[in-house]
């Protein structure tokens, strides 16, 4: 990239220098100026059809579509001049003449670009006196509903299916103001990545059936997180309403998921809202589990573990921090995990982006920290070992297999029925309720943050395990997950050099991760 020619231009009085070939719209972003636009999306080919991003370029005869005009040396661009504002006002009025203006019942309301720009730059009234065109809503298959009356024909959805998903399902049907998004005969939006069209739609024309009428945009709390549902580790925003996760949407990261996430990952969030939780620490008394205080439970667990051979059955959903602390309480014991598998579903137009076969967030992290991947979870459990069940649901495990353990300690969000004879149960937060890091299949360490409050007396996994380590008489002085991670980075060569600050919210690769390919920016549209 060293030989890239730089071009200097002035946008709204600010001088910017960008690589040759950059569009005016992208150049303006670097100067902190957002030029209003609809059809342009950095993850899609340029269409230049909405005409919203028209700007005045000095010495040019006409207004220029900034999404489709590349910068030139010495250019002077006016984004908010009278001429450009007048053009955008015109576009906004035209976009609204056939729009039903049904914001009060529209799911997009509050996060609608048509709404935003109209408030920002549009007319306060309309001069339209004629009947509006009407088309009925249509089920597009998959998770998508199409409401043509709200559609502004930006064609982002069409371009996503054609050029990114490589599954041409959508088209522009009809001409003139009769035009609407159509579906090719016999086809449905069943592509495993099709729901991205809902995110891409700048207005309320494409809606998610799953999210339909569930919440208004302004009621949502948004948290930067990672999709825990496969090893790709797509960056997401977890959206909660009254402490319930109601939607996951992709968060752009050019190294992992570009602008997209798959339907399976997106819709598989309900398990994080589950109600059948262990909410209090418990100890086994007289063949039954009785609620108790954290101090007593931690002390009991430490006593059970100290000096014993330990076998840890961990979940690959646990964070690097929790898994690291588990290795500390193993005292030379063994750790194993298993992972649910499904079919791999790549997104054809983006390099190295797929719904992965292994459906858990931290398979790579668990392996990097020395846990064995196995299909027979308790194969390594020796007679007389102390079994620590960490986040594992023990589905399909026979009571007989567990009986080999001298004692069972459960550190989990949900108490598996087969482990109800545990001597100690320590309730921990699930993925959406705590902070931490996970490592994706390309060795990229990424942070996730707390989106929901954990129920009852539940505590974050790193805190519980840190306390347990302390009670076992080992060095433990953790007040923040970042301190656990610092300890991990200090003691483990693979994680050396990383910290929460350096990882940030785009992640960083492990020392031994491949430096090219997946961890280089991924190219959208590269087939």
């Amino acid at each position, binding site marked *: 990239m060293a030989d890239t020619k730089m071009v200097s231009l002035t946008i709204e009085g600010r001088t910017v220098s960008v690589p040759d070939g950059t569009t005016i719209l992208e150049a303006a972003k670097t100067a902190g100026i957002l030029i209003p636009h609809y059809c342009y999306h950095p993850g899609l080919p*340029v*269409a*230049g*059809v*909405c*005409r*919203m991003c*028209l700007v005045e370029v000095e010495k040019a*005869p*006409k*207004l220029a*579509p900034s999404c*489709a005009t590349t910068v030139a040396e010495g250019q002077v661009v006016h984004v908010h001049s009278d001429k450009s504002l007048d*053009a955008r006002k*015109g*576009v906004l*009025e*035209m*976009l609204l*003449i*056939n729009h039903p203006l049904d914001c009060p019942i529209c799911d997009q309301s509050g996060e609608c670009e048509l709404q935003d720009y109209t408030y920002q730059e549009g007319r306060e009234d309309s*001069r*339209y*006196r*004629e009947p509006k065109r009407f088309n009925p809503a249509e089920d597009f298959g998959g998770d998508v509903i199409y409401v043509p009356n709200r559609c*502004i*024909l930006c064609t982002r959805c069409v371009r996503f299916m054609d050029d990114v998903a490589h599954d041409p399902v959508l*088209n*522009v049907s*009809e*001409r*003139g*103001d*009769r*035009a609407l998004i159509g579906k090719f005969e016999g086809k449905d939006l069943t592509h495993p990545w099709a729901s991205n069209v809902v995110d891409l739609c700048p207005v309320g024309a494409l809606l998610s059936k799953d999210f339909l009428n569930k919440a208004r945009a302004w009621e949502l709390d948004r948290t930067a997180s990672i999709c825990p549902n496969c090893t790709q580790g797509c960056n997401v925003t977890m959206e909660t309403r009254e402490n319930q996760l109601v939607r996951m949407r992709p968060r752009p990261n050019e190294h992992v998921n570009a602008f997209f996430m798959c339907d399976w990952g997106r819709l598989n969030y309900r398990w994080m809202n589950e109600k059948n939780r262990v909410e209090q620490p418990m100890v086994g008394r007289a063949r039954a589990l009785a609620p108790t205080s954290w101090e007593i439970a931690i002390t009991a667990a430490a006593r059970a573990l100290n000096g014993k051979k330990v076998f840890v059955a961990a979940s690959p959903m646990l964070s690097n921090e929790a898994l690291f602390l588990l290795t500390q309480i193993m005292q030379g014991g063994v750790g194993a995990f298993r992972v649910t598998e499904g079919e791999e579903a790549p997104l054809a137009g983006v390099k190295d982006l797929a719904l992965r076969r292994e459906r858990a967030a931290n398979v790579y992290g668990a392996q990097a920290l020395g846990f064995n991947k196995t299909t027979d979870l308790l194969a390594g459990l020796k007679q007389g070992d102390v079994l620590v069940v960490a986040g594992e649901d023990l589905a399909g495990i026979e009571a007989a297999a567990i009986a080999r353990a001298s004692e069972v300690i459960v550190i989990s969000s949900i108490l598996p029925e087969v482990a109800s004879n545990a001597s100690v149960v320590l309730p921990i937060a699930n993925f959406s309720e705590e902070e931490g890091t996970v490592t994706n299949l390309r060795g990229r360490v990424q942070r996730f943050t707390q989106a929901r409050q954990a129920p009852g007396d539940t505590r974050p996994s790193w805190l519980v395990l840190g306390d347990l380590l302390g009670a076992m008489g080992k060095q433990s002085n953790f007040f923040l997950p970042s301190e656990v991670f610092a300890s991990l980075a200090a003691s483990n060569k693979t994680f050396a050099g990383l910290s929460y600050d350096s990882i940030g919210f785009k992640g960083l690769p492990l020392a031994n991760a491949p430096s090219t390919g997946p961890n280089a920016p991924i190219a959208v549209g590269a087939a």
Partner: protein
Amino acid sequence: MGYPNQPHQRETPVLSRYFGDTEARSLAGWKKRGGYKALDKALGMAPADIVNVVKESGLRGRGGAGFPTGMKWSFMKPGDGKPHYLCCNADESEPGTFKDRELMRWTPHALVEGCAIGAYAIGAETAYVYIRGEFTEPLYWMEQAVKEAYGAGILGKNAMGTGKRIDVHVHKGAGAYICGEETALMESLEGRRGNPRIKPPFPAVSGVFGMPTTINNVETLIAAAPILMNGADWYKKMSLSNPKSTGTKLFSVCGNVQRPGTYEVVMGFPFKEFLYDLCGGPPHGRKFKAVIPGGASVPIQTVEEAEATLMDYEGFVAQGSMLGSGGVIVIDDGQSMVSVIARIARFFAHESCAQCTQCREGTAWTTKIMERIRDGQGTIEDLDTLLDIAEQMTGKTICVLSDSCAVPVVSGIKKFRGEFEALIQGRRFHPVIAAVA
């Protein structure tokens, strides 16, 4: 009098010479009339020399924009290692225009020859003739002509025995006005929906299949043959007005005239004489009110403007309009201008490709307001709204369809505001009743 009648003595039939002559349609008949001599001559010349002759002749695009043809051809850089393509735009859909239809119906071999000359001149081995889907008869004759030309070795791997390859393919459109826009035509030719592309890149850089492409109108390509045969000077001399507009031009005349038809006159011909003498003037008892001289998308002229016009690229501009495609629509005092403009707007609203917001919504909105005014439901504010919409539709979209819809509305309101106001104020339009002849 212009085809379908005998030519008027003031006409200069160069391209339209064989209109009505069924024999000229066949290869044998065409050769008898001197056909393919120009191609023979061209293939013996260096491509750059052909381009120079055409440049020298002053031939300008006959499809509407009037871009100098020789200069367009010179944009095709020889030896760039890429295949070049020639497209012939035979998607003649501009309302009021039917000159290319007649050219292809009567002299299909003239177009085959023109395409071959053009292709050779720009270094292309392949030429596509994109014919409007509704033109079933021209399509039939063109396909016959191409078949005959291949059979006689005029086209193909060894064109005219010179060892040069020239292929001509006839492609049938599917009935969209917008496919007459050059980049939409290319999209359509490639098998996609006919949506205009963003320019740049221009076709000479990236056209059909992403390769350098030249696109010319039917009349333009056909004119190349007589220019090569008779020389640039001969062509240049055919002008009654100025040296920027040379040669002959076909005008297809329709509407309220005594003798509608296709006329060929030299550039700079007086429009008044053309309308009253060649076309026979208005029907009995009527008077001309307005003229749309270059297809529906050029500004409307008042009859006074029309009568003062010299028929060439500059002459029409000087009198408030454009030469356009040469589709002359004549409107007499029996017509309501509001009605005429509403109908034109409806056409553009129907044909908008729906890409750009201003065009998709603006053409339809304009139509709705125009029809409301026509039906006596208009308000005075509507006129301002119309002009404002037209302003938003001008110069802001990918192609000029949107501008084309705005043009008749703006010129109509400007020049015939009285008719709009009369309808708005509740006065019915009273057409002049024609006197019995």
